[in-house]
């Protein structure tokens, strides 16, 4: 590659952008000049001159030098006041001279010619200049005039010279150093440096002389015309400026929650589970009663569950009403003691926004009571809760059941562990827990998040006989209901759970599409 370029017809130094060419011709004719001067003479923009000069310097055709020759100076905020009233030290000694060469601080304060700040500044500088001395007499500090400056000081002259406005430091001539001394004091004078770039042609450029005129011109964009006319053979293309900033491009995105849900669904499909779907508005019968939740259970209270206004009631399935009723009342044929209360069909007919997706899997089970059953759903559930940074009223659950002849709690642990492993989370543990519809029950905890904390992600268990028998199910049913949003918060590193449903473009765009790698990187 390199060889070919060296041998090729185009020598680097001979490929010039039109702007570069114009600048070089000007410089070889008129000698070194600043960016500003070149811009003025060649009718180019100063920025363009600067850019082209950098390129020419790379081609060794010019030298660019930075000269900080020109310093501009002007009065600062305090300086303007002092130029009118005099420096504080001057006003101090003038006062001392007037009242007889000696005064207490309180006298000076009383005179009102200097503010409190100015007294402090004046005393410091008058003392530094050797004009006064401070003598303690009892409790009072007495200022004594040592040497009264009759002539104006250099600093004072500078203030007067600058009264007319900004000028160059050099133009102050012998007073320049006094000006620099003043610049050390706050807000009196402001010195600004101006950097001048001087561009001069290199010896090589001067030697080349007219050869430059015949240099090939550079183009920055290949066009259809250049291709079809074949002219691309005669031009040179400029090299990329790698540091030039570009306008950002944003892709259209799937919502991060959808990406996570798809990932979860895929995982269960991979593990041999079939997706099911159930109603969002659900009969209390399926949401609670079929799951052996007694009708006075606190979860059924108005402040926990959303009830529908109109219609507010539906029809529980006649096929199961009686067996469920008996199970609640005295255990029925399930071998249970039951809850021992009078079950009401009114209560079971109420319509609720389902509080868990178990309502959907239990419905499925009621229609499929022959083994094996392996189904899952990832869907919305509702809680009549006040929304804040860690609570939502509507969220998703990852739900599933497995029914077969001889499955156990250990198999359930295996399914859940495998599921999280596939999401890149390898630390999963289980703790005994309680749900009215499962026994044994467990809470699932995984190691998650930035600070690697054990986080409760949901519950699981084996459906109680009080749940399965009334539906005609004879074999153990492993069941789980895991939280999606809590997982999402950890995976997307969110502090506020509400962000998930705000659709803020800046957030959606900030989530990497391969976020699952983020979870797996935390594996150890």
């Amino acid at each position, binding site marked *: 590659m390199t060889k070919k370029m060296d041998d090729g017809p185009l020598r680097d130094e001979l490929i010039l952008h039109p702007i570069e060419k114009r600048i070089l011709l000007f410089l070889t004719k008129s000698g070194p000049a600043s960016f500003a001067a070149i811009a003025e003479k060649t009718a180019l923009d100063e920025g363009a001159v600067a850019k082209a000069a950098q390129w020419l310097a790379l081609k060794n055709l010019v030298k660019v030098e930075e000269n900080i020759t020109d310093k501009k100076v002007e009065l600062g905020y305090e300086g303007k006041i002092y130029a009118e009233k005099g420096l504080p030290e001057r006003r101090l000694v003038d006062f001392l001279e007037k009242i007889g060469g000696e005064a207490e601080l309180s006298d000076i304060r009383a005179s009102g010619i200097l503010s409190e700040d100015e007294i402090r500044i004046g005393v410091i500088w008058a003392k530094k200049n050797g004009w006064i001395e401070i003598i303690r007499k009892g409790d009072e500090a007495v200022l004594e005039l040592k040497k009264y400056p009759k002539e104006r000081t250099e600093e004072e002259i500078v203030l007067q010279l600058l009264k007319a406005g900004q000028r160059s430091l050099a133009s102050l001539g012998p007073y320049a150093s006094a000006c620099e001394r003043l610049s050390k004091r706050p807000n009196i004078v402001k010195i600004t440096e101006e950097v001048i770039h001087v561009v001069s042609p290199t010896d090589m450029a001067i030697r080349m002389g007219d050869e430059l005129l015949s240099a090939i011109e550079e183009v920055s964009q290949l066009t259809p015309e250049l291709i079809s006319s074949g002219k691309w053979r005669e031009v040179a293309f400029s090299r990329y400026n790698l540091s030039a900033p570009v306008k950002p491009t944003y892709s*259209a995105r799937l*919502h991060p929650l959808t990406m996570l849900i798809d990932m979860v669904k895929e995982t269960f499909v991979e593990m041999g589970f079939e997706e099911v779907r159930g109603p969002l508005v659900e009969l209390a019968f399926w949401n609670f009663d079929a799951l052996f939740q007694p009708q006075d259970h606190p979860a059924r209270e108005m402040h926990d569950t959303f009830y529908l206004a109109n219609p507010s009631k539906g029809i529980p399935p006649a096929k199961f009403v009686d067996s469920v009723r008996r199970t609640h009342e005295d255990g029925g044929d399930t071998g249970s003691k039951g809850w021992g209360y009078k079950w009401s069909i009114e209560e079971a007919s109420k319509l609720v926004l389902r509080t868990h997706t178990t309502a959907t899997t239990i419905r499925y089970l009621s229609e499929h009571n022959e083994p094996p059953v392996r189904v899952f759903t990832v869907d919305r559930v509702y809680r009549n809760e006040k*929304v804040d940074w860690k609570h939502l009223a509507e969220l998703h659950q990852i739900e599933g059941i497995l029914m077969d002849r001889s499955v156990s709690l250990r198999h359930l642990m295996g399914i859940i562990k495998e599921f999280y492993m596939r999401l890149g989370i390898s630390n999963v543990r289980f703790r005994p827990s309680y749900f009215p519809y499962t026994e044994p029950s467990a809470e699932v905890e995984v190691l998650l998040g930035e600070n690697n904390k054990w986080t409760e992600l949901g519950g699981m268990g084996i459906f109680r006989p009080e749940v399965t028998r009334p539906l005609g199910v004879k074999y153990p049913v492993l069941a789980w209901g895991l939280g999606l949003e809590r997982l999402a918060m950890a995976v997307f590193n969110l502090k506020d759970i509400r962000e998930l449903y705000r659709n803020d473009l800046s957030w959606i765009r900030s989530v990497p599409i391969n976020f699952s790698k983020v979870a797996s990187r935390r594996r150890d």
Partner: protein
Amino acid sequence: MPAIMLKTNRIAEFLGREIKTEELIEAIRELGLAIEEAGTDYVKAEYNPNRPDYSSIAGIARALQGILGIKTGMPRYRVQKSDVKLIVDPKVKDVRPFVVSAIVKNLELNDESLEEIIAMQEDLHWIIGRDRRKVAIGLHDYSKVHPPIYYKAMLPDSVSFIPLGGRNKMTPKEILEETSTGSKYRWILDGKKYFPFIIDSRNEVLSFPPIINSSLTELTSRTKDIFIDVTGTDFKAISDALNILVTTLHDMGGTIYSVDVIYDDKHVITPDLSSTKWRINLKEQSALIGIDLRPIHALRALRRMRLDARIVGDEIEIDVPAYRIDIMHPVDFAEEIAIGIGYSQLTPLIPYTANFGKLRPESELSRLIRLLMIGLGFTEAVNTTLSNKQKEYEFLGIPNTGSPNILNPASLEYDTLRVRLLPGLLESLSINKHNPTPQKFFELGDVLQIDESVPERFVRRLSLCIVISHSSASFSEIKSIQEEIARSLQLDLKMIAKDYPFMMPGRSVALLSNDVEAGYMGEIHPAVLEKFKIEMPVTALELNLSLLGIL
């Protein structure tokens, strides 16, 4: 879940040996409590509501003794007979029909243990008592009580007494109206002609259940003997609460004495702390856990759970103490055994059941449509199906009729369910006002619809909505996108001019599929944009996918 504060040194007192906080955390986790917070010398834990016997440190320590191997098997409680009688007035049947009672003597209380007792009482009120409706507990300094004791129903203004925390005598009616406890619980007595009272032989009111006790018998750290009344609507529930209370007070050093409760039709001696016998088939229960358990190991595990267990023929016989009110079915012992062994000792297994995985058609179609929308440059939005009437109807200028409204909204933010996706997307545009335009969003999600033909009366319908917002958003732009969506999904959509309250007149259309209106498209009315605080033109399209015959 109810919470309890466990001071490590206090637990150690009940355990009868020292324990480190780390060991405590591990052990209570094994029991199934959730650690909420832990310090160097305390653990704040949450317990499951099926175990109200965990409402005291003594109760948790009892279980810990088992799991830590300090004491195993069922704890025994002796009930001494007393000649104290509690006579029940038949009139209480219509108010609060049941009462049980006990006396616990020889306690040595201090401020700390007194506080534990009160906290336990509150938890029991909530968990078993359903906020005092089902069960209410009265605890009294027995030295102030003069038996026999009466449980009576009387007219609300027929007595007066100084309520706990009060200064002056008040009638029950005044208590309900003027005290904070009264106003909090008076709903339980709503519509009752008579109110229930516990009264002693000197006619002093001890309790006005389920509202408040009399200050006369208030417990203090100097109280030695406690008289307990538990009233309620369910005999089993009040007995459960009493049993948990007295066994805990016993573990705190007290001696339990019975009370004769005399109803007009029966006579019961409470508390009844006799254990319950269960028989289980070990094979069945160990299959549920997934281990082949030798009987001796099962017995050990059950004893670690503070149960008595022995082998009887092919079965295991188990004695369950009276404070364990959670056992309903033989299956409950599977969990007892599993906890007794330790969940952490159970190695996960992969089930060999084979099945083929599959997605629902809605999920399959949704994936394809999402791909299409991304290809068209639209970013996906996800909004909640919970919405509010203002956003859903008022802002769009459409009437709220026959909609899925919530009966008991906790806030005005969510008082209905969405019937279209558009309001949610307009809100998304409003939230993104500060981000650069053009902005193009789509949402693919469910809306709710009434359908009297299904038992649950409402159905979810998959809908697709898109919005485009920039300074020159135009009809031709969105029409072109609609045509590409139709081409890609093989839809035969016809456009007819139609005005909608939320679109600009003459600048919107209905989309028909087989002559059924399946959607709308057009330019959002500036009055609607103003309500959503959007300052850019917006065009929108919404299609009800369930009406298109593609699902």
